[in-house]
């Protein structure tokens, strides 16, 4: 019965980050030192400018509002509900409070002693990382070095597994070996194999050392053909010596051994030689199953696919891989690289199949080559789930008289390809931004003209197109056509600096919401909504800002939003921290969208705040902060307040 009250505090704290990352023996003493504070409606817990006390707060029930005092009156910055941590300033620095905390309604908060939390920071990198992520501006980079943004999905976060490929982990399981003596008849051996449902049998000496192996292929080739009678001993047909590997072989090594010896079965022995007992058998099929969906295998298999149905299967296996990566909290840079490679391989295969189909139908490929461009999120290399396809085609300049014929061929190629992609699961773009649309299947000269037109006549629709087309990325075909186009765009931008301002203004269209409160999305105006559009309200503003900044700095070839931020961070030292936070925020958002999409089997674009866990709300809300700061940076840099 002892410790009942701290236990109650503990039971609450352990549900919410960063406390959820702590074990009981660490958290219980923290609960023991907590105070329970009742806050009357309208009462202030602390005031902006006050020296911080000795506690940080977590809302037990009710609502605490954080205000920034300004000459025009208090400005609501944040609304904290159950489980939200606030007033963290004393933990970080002995600076005065930056905000005023006031109860919006009758509230109960737990005040947790700063000393207790500070003590655990060094021993618990997860807590430090969480605080760094949440309150980055105040923490400095000390705690965030080398730690990439995480969702804290619960369980053990996969520290350091970011780039660890499963391939190099030792294989743990191989089948118990099915064996027989050399004098066993072929008939008996075949019966054992079929009873055990295995494709091979190891012929062993009395010491269980492997002498040879008989596989179902041997049976088919040598027995079914009547070459050797069934009554003969197995040693007459076995392959010998057996290729052996040590029991603790890695997947990569096993694969290499099979490829090198052109065999489909490996015998595992104690010391890896034929001079020690057999401990297991590994078939190529086992290996495939164990590897599940290794990206290299998926990409290789893509090249063998003959139909869009087969490609769809590959893409679905890629999705399982994605799911695994997301739950293991593998670095998003790695995940997006893998998924983009797979998507690209699928697109390339669709094009190859389309080319072949046209040739079969008697339509010869024109002498003028082409390049397939991915646009939008696939262009940025950020398409984790199958969302709409956005693509375009550029072909080499051709003489006027051939133009129509060449264009007709490529339109047909694009039609076949987009249809195939649709069958793979990439929906048609509702805005028809696809290479099969005559407007977006153009020669290089036409494309150059098109971009110039957008840049020199920046009407709203043109700017909208730019946000999609400027992220183009050559995926298949003559990549130099893409390069030429980039060079042209940069040249045009040099002559039309005002265009950047239009692009920047477009990036401000969708300010992020203020926060989540209970089951609502709270807008800056205080309005509450039930649905959150992660793409429009959080991802696009970041992607748009990254694009403007990257184009402004004339950074070529980097389309990926977080890589763009990372790159700009290296160029602009004084805004480095903000750009790094923006990159982190984007990664977090990509994870959420993928996670939500996998859960709902949808594009993951829309969330109901009621469906989010506390941790998820906090993570998302934190991702809003750099967006707001970036938008004000763009406003200043491009003098957008003068634009009307």
């Amino acid at each position, binding site marked *: *019965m*002892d*410790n*009942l*009250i*701290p*236990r*109650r*505090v503990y*039971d609450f704290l352990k549900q919410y980050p960063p406390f959820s990352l702590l074990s009981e023996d660490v958290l219980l003493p923290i*609960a*023991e*030192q*907590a*105070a*329970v*504070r*009742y*806050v*009357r409606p309208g009462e202030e817990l602390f005031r902006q400018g006050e020296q911080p006390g000795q506690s940080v707060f977590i809302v037990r*029930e009710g609502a605490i509002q954080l205000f920034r005092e300004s000459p025009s009156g208090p400005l609501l910055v944040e609304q904290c509900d159950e489980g939200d941590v606030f007033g963290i300033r004393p933990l970080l620095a002995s600076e005065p409070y930056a905000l005023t905390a006031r109860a919006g309604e*009758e509230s*109960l908060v737990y*005040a947790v002693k700063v000393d207790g939390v500070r003590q655990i920071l060094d021993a618990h990198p997860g807590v430090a990382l969480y605080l760094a992520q949440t309150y980055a501006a105040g923490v400095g980079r000390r705690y965030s070095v080398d730690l990439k943004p995480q969702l804290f999905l619960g369980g053990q976060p996969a520290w350091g597994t970011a780039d660890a490929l499963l391939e190099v982990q030792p294989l743990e399981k191989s089948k118990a070996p099915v064996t027989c003596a050399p004098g066993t008849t072929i008939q008996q051996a075949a019966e054992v194999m079929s009873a055990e449902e295995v494709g091979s049998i190891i012929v062993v000496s009395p010491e269980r050392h492997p002498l040879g192996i008989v596989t179902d292929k041997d049976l088919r080739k040598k027995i079914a053909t009547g070459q050797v009678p069934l009554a003969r001993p197995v040693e007459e047909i076995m392959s010998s010596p057996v290729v052996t590997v040590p029991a603790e072989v890695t997947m990569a090594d096993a694969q290499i051994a099979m490829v090198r010896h052109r065999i489909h079965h490996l015998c595992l022995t104690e010391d890896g030689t034929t001079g020690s007992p057999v401990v297991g058998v590994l078939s190529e099929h086992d290996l495939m199953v164990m590897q599940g969906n290794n990206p290299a295998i998926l990409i290789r298999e893509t090249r063998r696919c003959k139909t869009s149905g087969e490609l769809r299967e590959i893409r679905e296996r890629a999705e399982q891989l994605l799911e695994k990566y997301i739950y293991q909290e593998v670095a998003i840079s790695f995940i997006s690289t893998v998924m983009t490679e797979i998507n690209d391989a699928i697109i390339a295969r669709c094009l190859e199949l389309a080319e072949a189909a046209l040739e079969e139908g008697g339509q010869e490929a024109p002498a003028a080559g082409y390049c397939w461009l991915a646009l939008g999120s696939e262009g940025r290399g950020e398409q984790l789930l199958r969302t709409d396809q956005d693509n375009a085609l550029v072909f080499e300049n051709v003489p006027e008289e051939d133009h129509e014929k060449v264009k007709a061929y490529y339109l047909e190629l694009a039609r076949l390809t987009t249809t195939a992609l649709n069958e793979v699961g990439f929906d048609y773009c509702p805005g028809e931004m696809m290479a099969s649309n005559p407007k977006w299947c153009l020669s290089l000269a036409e494309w150059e003209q098109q971009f110039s037109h957008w840049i020199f006549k920046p009407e709203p629709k043109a700017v909208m197109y730019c946000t999609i087309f400027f992220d183009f990325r050559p995926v298949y075909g003559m990549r130099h056509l893409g390069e030429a186009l980039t060079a042209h765009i940069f040249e045009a931008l040099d002559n039309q600096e005002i265009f950047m301002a239009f692009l920047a203004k477009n990036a401000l269209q969708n300010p992020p919401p203020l926060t989540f409160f209970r089951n609502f999305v709270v807008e800056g105006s205080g309005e509450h909504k039930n649905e959150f559009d992660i793409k429009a309200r959080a991802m696009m503003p970041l992607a748009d800002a990254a694009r403007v900044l990257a184009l402004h700095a004339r950074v070529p070839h980097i389309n990926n939003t977080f890589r763009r931020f990372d790159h700009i961070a290296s160029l602009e030292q004084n805004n480095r921290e903000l750009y790094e936070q923006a990159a982190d925020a984007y990664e977090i958002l990509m994870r959420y969208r993928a996670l939500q999409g996998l859960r709902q089997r949808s594009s993951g674009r829309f969330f109901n705040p009621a469906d989010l866990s506390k941790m998820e709300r906090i993570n998302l809300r934190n991702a809003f902060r750099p967006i707001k700061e970036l938008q004000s940076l763009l406003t200043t840099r491009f003098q957008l307040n003068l634009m009307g």
Partner: protein
Amino acid sequence: MWDWLNKWRAPVPEGPPFWEAYLRSLTARPAAKRQPLSEVEFVVFDTETTGLDPQKDQILSIGAVRACQWQIEVSDRFEYALQQEYTPVPGTVAVHGILPGRKIGNLPEEAALQEFLAYCEGRVLVAHHAAFDLAMLEAGLKKMGGGKLQNHVLDTGVLAQRVSPGHKPYGLDELLKVYGITPSDRHTAAGDAYMTALLLFKLLFRLEQRGVKTLGDLLKKPRKL
């Protein structure tokens, strides 16, 4: 109407040393009637007993928290089970889960009551249906040669009726529900004391809204026995 309270507070000249120490401690934490609500120091407590008759039944455990300035320090709590010999009435144990002879944080009854007095000093005592808990404590103290408790006493049941007059008297469970306090860990003295303290805060705020500003205002209505 409440001059009997003042009579209570008249110093008792003699008694065992623990009782004299208690009487002296009253002046260490004087609860002045002009104190604003937020400065009043409360001890919110609860007892678990073997039954409902102060003359026959015994205290099994005492739980208490100090509440002041709308705050409770978790580490500053009082939580003792009392050692005793008795045969539990079947059913009582089922409610509060305390088994006889349990050795966790327990003290002989005398020591526990002395500790409790030292914990309270002159603070204002608060309990739900305080009359019963008070009678249980005083029955125990009497056996030890002590007298009546001299502290101001508040009953959250009575305060709740002041907040919503005309309502039938509420049990603690009902009130916790009405005031949205999650009633986990109920039926242990410490759990109930903690919950009662949260209830006290909510009631104090509501009374404050109605012009109750000081301890004196709070004590104006007599507690009903």
